[in-house]
């Protein structure tokens, strides 16, 4: 009677609306997480032309800070209001991102802005290695568990399917982050100045724009977004060494598919990767890992600059 999963069953599943909704919801949740991770990476590249290899370390720092502080909050305040743990999650991500971003930008990157993009890849890679070991020195190798914020929100039924409300909140968080990024870039004076810097750095300097300040601000925002992604993920995983390196590969896949430096591209890239992966999990789980990179390869074969990347003539 060991019948396994047969092709006709798969065909039936395709027409099953519950499976369709499951694919859609799971894909959206995964895409939200991917976007949160990739947003900081694409913001930094878009403005500064730095492919920040250390972005995964900021994710890890955010996750460790959140997991350790929230863990401490619950273990030392038995009577405390558990809902404050969400403020701690976000607060420590902001603090960690601001501090780490400021120190790295002021202490290292500002001396290297005129260097070649490839050199910056190597510099941020070195930073990744340093931060990985620094994280290990500070937090050790023992895993950190913070399950309370994840389970506290309970779950919701969507049709026959139960979803963790925390995951649904993550979708909301990614919409807020994406919306804010778009609003700042397109509807504020700072955004206009940033776009001028993106368009032509030299002309922006000639027009009196303080490019260094713009770079510092952008890097700190990018770092904080990375830390925020880590902090928001911490309650649903076991936080342990190496988590930053694991996510950065996926984040690269998303920004490459969408087009480096494009927020809209990161949204579409995350959705494409998330939905494709979800479809594979539900319909053909054995090829799930392949499809993520299959999509990336296909997009790059057709549009090497990514879906939203623009081809720009450049002097060398």
């Amino acid at each position, binding site marked *: *009677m*060991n*019948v*396994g*999963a047969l092709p006709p069953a798969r065909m039936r599943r395709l027409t099953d609306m*519950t499976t369709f909704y*499951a694919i859609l*919801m*799971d894909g959206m*949740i*995964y895409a939200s997480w991917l976007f949160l991770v990739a947003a900081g990476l694409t913001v930094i*590249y878009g403005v500064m*032309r730095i*492919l920040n*290899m250390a972005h*995964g370390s900021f994710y890890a720092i955010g996750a460790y800070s959140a997991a350790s502080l929230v863990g401490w909050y619950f273990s030392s305040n038995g009577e405390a209001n558990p809902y404050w743990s969400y403020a701690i999650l976000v607060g420590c991500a902001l603090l960690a991102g601001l501090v780490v971003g400021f120190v790295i930008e002021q202490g290292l990157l500002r001396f290297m802005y005129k260097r070649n*993009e*490839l050199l910056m*890849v190597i510099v941020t890679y070195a930073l990744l290695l340093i931060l990985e*070991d620094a994280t*290990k020195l500070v937090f050790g*190798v023992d*895993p950190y568990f913070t399950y309370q914020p*994840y*389970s506290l929100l*309970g*779950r919701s039924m969507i049709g026959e*399917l*139960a979803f*963790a409300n*925390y*995951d649904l909140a993550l979708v909301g968080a990614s919409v807020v982050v994406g919306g804010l990024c778009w609003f700042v870039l397109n509807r504020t004076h700072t955004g206009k100045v940033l776009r001028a810097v993106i368009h032509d750095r030299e002309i922006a300097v000639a027009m009196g724009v303080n490019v260094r300040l713009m770079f510092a601000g952008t890097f700190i925002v990018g770092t904080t977004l990375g830390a925020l992604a880590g902090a928001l*993920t911490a309650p*649903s*995983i*076991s936080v*342990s*060494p*190496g*988590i930053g*390196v*694991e*996510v*950065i*590969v996926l984040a690269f*896949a998303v920004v*490459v598919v969408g087009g*480096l430096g494009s927020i809209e591209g990161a949204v579409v890239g995350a959705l494409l990767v998330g939905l494709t*992966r979800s479809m594979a*999990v*539900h319909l053909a*789980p054995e090829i*799930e890992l392949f499809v993520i990179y299959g999509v990336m390869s296909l997009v*790059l074969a057709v549009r*090497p*600059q990514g879906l939203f*990347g623009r*081809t*720009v*003539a450049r002097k060398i």
Partner: protein
Amino acid sequence: MLAYSCARRGAAIACLGIGIIGGTWSAPALARVELGLPATQAQVTIGCLYPMTGRAAIYGKDSVAGIKLALAELAAEADAPRLRVIVDDDRSKASYAVRMAEDFIAHDKARFLCGMVSSGVAQAVSKVALKNKVVMVGTDHASSRLTIEGLHPYYFRVSNDSYTSMAAGARYLAELQKKTGWKRLAYIGPDYDYGHVSWSDFQSNLEHLGVRYESVGMFWPKLYEPDYSAYIQAMLKAEPDIVVTSLWGGDFVAFLKQARTTDFFTRIRLANFDTGGNYEVMLSLGDKPPPGLILSARHHNNWPDTDTNRRFVETFRQAEGRFPTYAAEGAYSGIMAIARAVTKAGGATDMGAVITALEGLELHLPEDPDGFNSFIDPDTHQIVQTQAVGEVVANTAYPPAKVMLGKWTVYGAEDLRPLPELVRSRRAKAAGAVELIE
């Protein structure tokens, strides 16, 4: 003026980035630890490889602590061999581990290799052991491929493999079927050798026991997957009675965390027979574990309730300030096995004699119940041990964990060995495949 695509250049740099990240674990490790006697005084050098960085670093850390316990015990014995143990970080990368193993042999004159958490890494290092004719003792990886299809004279393993754990699991589920009549089964395991071999071992054991079931889904998340929500939904949709998993470490913890916010545990029983009962998992469950978990591990801090196990756990706790994961007992067993084999063989110069000593070697280990000694099967070079499968119960004796396993069902070692016909058939199939390729 030469125009070219700036964005294409960006994409190329991104691909370079992915390549560099992929190679991150190949960067030189800095974690070499030397234990035991210095080279000038040691009779035997053992080179051990464990992950000291990355997600599995806790297993490396506990393994080092386990090795220290074994060396301390041996130091107190007058006739024990004088050992030097070098431990280094394999970064869970096969290519890196191979290079380090070759360095151990060439530069440190290691006569034994030991350790390894990843089955993929172990398979690569096993080939180094064979090529250099040094003995390798596996302590923490579990793919049964190493002791069946891929076995060679120089490879031995002293912790439960996927076959042993799945044999115990299949027996447990066979008995459960008689009580509950469960029929529908799904599996979720990491998408690498260990996950696939575990499923295959489980199926062959169910078949051997004549258990009739319907397989309603197999799921293969990548190692270190952060989001299991799609898998959980797919499993809920498939409506299995039981889900068997071989997710381990942080992956299993993440799966549990994410599944407990759905109605997964009210509808499905989850079983993890190889690693699910690890102390790290107990710790993560807090004081409100999900219902219906069926778990086991390669060593338990609270089973068997023997002097040897109590002493091992307590000595570890005193030394490290916390309770051990199963990795500690595996590493401890590895060093003890090498020491006893060297003593039995009268030294480590004649590898043939050491291999003969290891084949059938009996050891009394912390996970052995009273009246039973673990022993190494001469045919598979796999240690033969009893296994206890349990359910989660409240237990505050091992803080900070608030639950431990209890309500044990214990399976005798002899029942968990692969039948000689199965071993022959798997080896013949593998040999046939090799011939076909050639």
